[in-house]
């Protein structure tokens, strides 16, 4: 990575650290090994920007989730702090900061204190390769997807460390469960995401997006039926990797109090929760970039978009929009599905997701061979698949409306007042 950062070839930079570092070198006139300092400074600046973004995402999304959850249960949700309760996340964060930072007497103090950092670093590290727009990515590493898979594995270390160091049976069980779950589900996640890697021919997150287009039928999700199935597999498996309901058995309240973070309080507890909420963005962003066309604007080539600031902003809006929709779907799923059992979770992983993702991988490879011979048939299939996908989304809303009318909520409400 250092090589790509310091290389000053003819091609224009497409990552933020490189662009900022080049600019700093030009301004300060540093040369030789000292120019490395400029790039180091650029890294710090970009990391601070990303940190601000993560904080401003993870905070408000807790409010969004609670409001959505409230409405789905015919409640209102938090609506007292700020307009429509929007500042609830600030109040919650402040409350957690003011709480006592307790380390249990029988706990392993060093590991106990260290665990949140691992979880947090494993989450935040992925943002280095998550793109926001054509030219806006912290580091366009050539191993992007591999790096995401590798560094999220650090979360397991933190979770099992916290569970072990708490010296509490609930924490330990939660840590063990999360280790078993995340390690198992990494296999279908990786296999499913190999489909877009196969289609795009690159591991770099930006290259995968560049291989797609702005229109839905140019997205990898609708490239062929196998990629669409891979998207579903990836989505389910990344839910499990992020410990989201219905796969939140590591923190199953009914069995384990709160799982691995039972003994945590104050800011350390906040660090766990922060990572969990920020993980929502990672799930949505990886699915967006690998399957749903990323920041591609319809009819705008990627290099044109990279050169213009306005188009970059538009691309970022598209990317953030797609990711937010996926985050809403994740929230929607959480308040729809009940938590599954441990054996069911393992069943789903090993008997369903892993074989299906293998089939998807082989199927996508075979499809590519056929589509190369019959390009028109490939495009026709993509258009048909994207229409089917749109119909599926539409059918959900139609069905929801039908459900609402059937229940006669209006009459019910009238009777109450």
């Amino acid at each position, binding site marked *: 990575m250092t090589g790509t950062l310091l290389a000053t070839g003819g091609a224009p930079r497409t990552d933020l650290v490189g662009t900022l570092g080049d600019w700093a070198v030009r301004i300060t006139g540093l040369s030789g090994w000292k120019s490395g300092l400029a790039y180091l400074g650029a890294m710090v600046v970009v990391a601070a920007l990303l940190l601000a973004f993560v904080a401003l995402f993870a905070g408000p999304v807790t409010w969004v989730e609670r409001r959505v959850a409230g*409405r*789905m249960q*015919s409640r209102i949700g938090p609506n007292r702090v700020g307009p429509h309760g929007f500042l609830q996340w600030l109040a919650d964060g402040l409350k957690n900061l003011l709480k006592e930072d307790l380390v249990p007497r029988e706990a392993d103090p060093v590991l106990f204190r260290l665990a949140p950092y691992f979880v947090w670093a494993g989450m935040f590290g992925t943002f280095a390769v998550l793109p926001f727009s054509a030219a806006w990515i912290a580091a366009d590493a050539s191993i992007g997807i591999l790096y995401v898979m590798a560094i999220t594995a650090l979360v397991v270390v933190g979770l099992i460390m916290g569970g072990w160091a708490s010296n509490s049976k609930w924490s330990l069980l939660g840590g063990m469960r999360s280790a078993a779950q995340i390690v198992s589900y990494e296999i279908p996640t990786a296999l499913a995401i190999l489909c877009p890697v196969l289609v795009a021919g690159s591991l770099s997150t930006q290259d995968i997006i560049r291989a797609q287009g702005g229109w839905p039928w140019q997205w990898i999700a609708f490239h062929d039926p196998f990629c669409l199935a891979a998207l579903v597999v990836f989505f389910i498996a990344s839910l499990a990797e992020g410990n989201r309901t219905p796969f939140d058995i590591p923190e199953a309240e009914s069995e384990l109090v709160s799982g691995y973070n039972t003994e945590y309080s104050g800011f350390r507890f906040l660090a766990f929760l922060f990572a969990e909420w920020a993980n929502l963005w990672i799930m949505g962003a990886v699915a967006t970039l690998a399957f749903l066309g990323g920041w591609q604007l319809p009819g705008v080539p990627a290099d044109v978009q990279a050169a213009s600031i306005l188009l970059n902003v538009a691309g970022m809006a598209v990317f953030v929009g797609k990711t937010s929709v996926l985050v809403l779907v994740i929230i929607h799923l959480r308040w*729809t*599905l009940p938590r599954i059992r441990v054996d069911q979770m393992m069943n789903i992983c090993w008997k369903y997701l892993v074989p299906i993702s293998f089939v998807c991988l082989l199927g996508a490879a075979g499809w590519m061979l056929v589509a190369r011979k019959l390009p028109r048939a490939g495009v026709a299939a993509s258009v048909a698949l994207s229409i089917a996908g749109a119909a*599926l989304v539409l059918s959900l809303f139609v069905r*929801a409306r*039908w459900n*609402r009318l059937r229940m006669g909520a209006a009459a019910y*409400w009238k009777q109450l007042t």
Partner: protein
Amino acid sequence: MTATRQCPARDYLRNIWNALYSTWEGMSVTLSHMYRRPITTQYPDRIAKPVEDRLPERYRGILEAEVDLCTGCQACARDCPIGCIDAEVRADPGSRQRLIHRFSIDIGKCMYCGLCTDACPSGALRHTQLFVASNVDVLNLVIDFVDEPRPVHKARKSEPAPTPAPRGSILAGRLARIAWDRPRDLPGDPRQRPVDIKIAIEGRDRPEAETDLLAEPMLPAAKASPASRAAIARLPRAEPAPADAPPEEAKQDA
């Protein structure tokens, strides 16, 4: 598939279909709630109508005794399973008239069963729709309905039946006279405060002000909690509760 034939591949595919279909169906159900209005009642400050007004007619709130109608039969006190009604009726030695000396209800003990109101022959005892009476001191929850000994009500055929006061009006006047933020300690009160409660309360509050608290008589126009004040203000009031004349006395004179 028939039950006798086992076909693993078909089961496998059916499981996948069931998982996807039931998730879609479940999501449509939860999504349909986004089209509906929440049914939350935002008690106490964001409600279109006060909760007291929305309660059903037969709601069993805090008990209220209209002593003007009380015949002094004490059936309520006998029927109360926990003995929270303290009704004392004695004959006046001179005029041989039966006088109600005390009629107090401990709403801290009351379990709102309604047996006393069933027993009351004249409708003097009834449940109101008030329920806000939170207090710092448990003894403040004893509500007296008689200030001075007064004759019992006697129903006569020659007189028209008296019209009862609006439901809740008497209780509202009584509640307004009870401080919600100060422990009650009337001199000469036969209900002595248990020692441990006394120590706990006075040790926690101002121990140096103990004598002040004990010497100070309970003020008639005392501070009610904001919530109960709001509830009381909405009620139809028979008489305003002046500082020196409780409403019952004024009514008796008239």
